[in-house]
């Protein structure tokens, strides 16, 4: 935010001439308008952006023009204590990024050096900074091509950007882009794509004078080794189960220019998972980041895998059924129970089978009974002839009654379907 630019001291306040007074008053009014306060407010978008920038992955912000991408970047730079360099790609020429050829005395001997532009030289001199490439979508194709090298190799002309420089780009979505800019799959693969949207409430409150101040995630030193181990376990375990998702080029027109899975973007996802865990961000932030790195489908599947990793281990449930802690959410609870039954089925022994029933009884005591029908049916089918039905099963009688009631209802519905089709259509 620029400081209120008062012309000369003589002009402000008690002015001498008529116009001077008017300008001074205008300045006062502007100062008043620009005096705003901030309030803390959780902001998932900003958290995700901060983490990706901290993880040194190039970020691409997609968003309609004028929704506060630049303002967010300014806030980020302040809080990370990095000088912000904004380069508006569309007003530059390719040579501003690839270097300007300078003809020396004897080109044949010395070659033609490619001189970097001033902003790059200053970035290198500072050694650190946040490079914001704005308006990527309105630059000409040649400028975009030149920018690739800046993003991927961090080179501007002959100049290598130091590792302390972080890169964020911004683009308008394809639907609102005025020209043909879209990312080629190789380039899209290197970015973490974040979709920037404005929050009605934030805008209204902000114009009223109170802008949000996000609490940025902080890495917790003690959690670093644990975070790396968790991220590796999650991604490797997932890709072992779904090897087809390791590499999948986008194949339809609608998915072009977005994130897609490849070993490189999985590495990015792993990095982001580790950073997210070390900073203890919420699953929602993690979801934005992972989906932005590997795409919606694979990202959601990885997150579902994380959910399953959170499920209690079936063996430990079987070891101590009376104190078993089952998830509260119905679908997860059922998944946990099914895992228990599957574990019994994998190594069917009488002791384990009885423990399985005990887990089901425990589930009956702590939650909805209809979740138990499917696991109980499977577990009952695992019975060997010489195994006696444990007493616990009797406590599940209500579940069986529930299942019968549902069965009868399905039967009634099937029976009345033929008769009711004509009558029911009216209403």
């Amino acid at each position, binding site marked *: 935010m620029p400081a209120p630019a008062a012309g000369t001291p003589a002009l402000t306040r008690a002015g001498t001439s008529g116009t001077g007074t008017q300008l001074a008053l205008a300045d006062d009014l502007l100062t008043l308008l620009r005096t705003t306060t901030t309030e803390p407010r959780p902001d998932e978008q900003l958290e995700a952006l901060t983490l990706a920038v901290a993880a040194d992955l190039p970020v691409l912000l997609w968003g309609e023009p004028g929704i506060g991408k630049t303002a967010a970047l300014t806030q980020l730079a302040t809080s990370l204590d990095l000088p912000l360099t904004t380069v508006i790609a569309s007003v530059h020429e390719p040579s501003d990024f690839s270097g300007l050829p300078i003809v020396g005395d004897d080109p044949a001997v010395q070659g033609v050096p490619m001189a970097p532009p001033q902003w790059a030289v200053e970035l290198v001199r500072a050694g650190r900074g946040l490079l914001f490439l704005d308006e990527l979508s309105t630059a000409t194709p040649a400028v975009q091509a030149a920018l690739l090298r800046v993003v991927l190799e961090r080179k501007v002309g002959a100049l290598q950007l130091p590792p302390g420089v972080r890169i964020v780009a911004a683009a308008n979505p394809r639907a609102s882009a005025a020209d043909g800019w879209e990312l080629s799959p190789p380039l899209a693969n290197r970015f973490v794509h974040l979709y920037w949207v404005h929050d009605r409430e934030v805008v209204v409150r902000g114009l009223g004078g109170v802008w949000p101040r996000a609490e940025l995630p902080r890495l917790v030193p003690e959690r670093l080794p644990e975070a790396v181990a968790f991220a590796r376990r999650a991604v490797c375990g997932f890709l072992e189960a779904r090897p087809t998702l390791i590499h999948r080029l986008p194949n339809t027109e609608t998915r072009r220019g977005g994130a897609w899975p490849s070993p490189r973007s999985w590495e990015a996802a792993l990095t982001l998972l580790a950073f997210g865990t070390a900073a203890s961000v919420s699953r929602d932030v993690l979801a934005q980041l992972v989906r932005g790195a590997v795409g919606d489908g694979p990202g959601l599947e990885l997150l579902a895998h994380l*959910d399953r990793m959170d499920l209690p281990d079936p063996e430990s449930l079987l070891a101590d059924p009376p104190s078993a802690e089952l998830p509260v959410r119905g679908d997860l609870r059922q998944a946990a129970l099914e895992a228990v039954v599957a574990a019994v089925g994998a190594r069917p022994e009488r002791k384990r089978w009885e423990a399985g029933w005990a887990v089901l009884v425990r589930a009956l005591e702590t939650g909805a009974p209809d979740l138990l029908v499917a696991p109980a049916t499977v577990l009952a089918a695992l019975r060997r002839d010489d195994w006696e039905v444990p007493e616990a099963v009797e406590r599940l009688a209500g579940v069986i009654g529930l299942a019968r009631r549902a069965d*009868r209802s399905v039967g009634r519905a099937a029976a009345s379907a033929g008769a009711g089709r004509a009558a029911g259509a009216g209403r």
Partner: protein
Amino acid sequence: MEKLLAARLHAVKVRPYLAAALFALHVVEDRSVPTMAVDPHWRCYVSPGFVARTPVEELAGVWVHEVSHLLRDHHGRGERYAREHEEHRPGERGTAAGWGRLRRNIAADFEINDDIYGDGLPLPSGAVLPSLLRLPAGLLMEEYLRTASMSGLTADLAWLDCGSGADGQIRPWELGPDGAHGLSRQQRDAVRFRVAEGIRGRPGSAPDGWRRWADEAFHPPQPWRQLLGAAVRSAAGAAGVGEDHSFRRPSRRSAGVPGVLLPSLRRTPPRVCVVIDTSGSVSDAELGGALLEVAAIAQAVGGRRDLVSVISCDAAAGVAVPLCRAENIALIGGGGTDLRSGFDRALRSRPRPDVIVALTDGQTPWPSAQPSCRTVVGLFPRPARAVDEEDPDYVPDAPPPWARVVTIG
């Protein structure tokens, strides 16, 4: 409670692909709810009285109905619609806001009710169907909202209330985002994704409506006009044609920086050749609409009508007609399809086009090799099982991978 859960089991039994979503719902008993309602955080509010007086099999239908509101994101879509089309004043509890809410709820119910019932799931009494207003079935909520005034329904339906999960308007009985047992956005997405994957994994068992939902749940189709426009723009704007920098003449800025070579901006408008499939299988309306779009886009790209030419092609290709000369181009054809001759003709025309835009229904052989210019295919959608009577095994080739394919309409 037991009756309600038996109904949920019934629903799971006849709609196994919805099991994850049904079990993820958290039941809240509340006497102030008229019947059953959901909120965007996947809580299901149930009136005990309603459960007591409704048979189990109908309750099963209500379960599926309520979970459908959530799976199909009716609260998000309803809110978006309200923001775009209606005066939305959340603070006001006047009749206008209530009426808007009811309309959205009814439209959402239409979208759900016309395809989830039957096949083991009886239609609950009191469920509204689009036929009530003599509307066609199978439309989306937004389409019902746009086409129908829905007046005349209000009197007997004012009790109808599926909660904010159906229309995005918060109700007094709801627990809100901070209440217990709500699902976060990520968790909701994960459940919806798992259901969609389940449906796509077993395409045989789910009805068309749900399959369509599964295909589009996480990749909503973009409007084809914008896609076609983006494809033509990016084909025409790629390196070599269009506006780009070149060193052919130095920039005028060069004078100010002696010793530095600066490129200048040159504009080379692309030549666009539109090959139109005029075989009998493509309808006139389809052709007319798409051709207008392409002409408009090509003009926006090149800016000059004389750079756009049109070839009509069925089994044999016609002549390339420049757009500037033909006020009304006669599209000749009507026979079988072989677009290869059209591509040949386009590439042989002089000057050579920079971009070929082919508009076809895809029932054609394609050139075996990539043409020497960029290609955009606008595909009119056809049902998957279009069988040739004379040769039932005939399967038309899919458009080749080197073409940008946009499905139209």
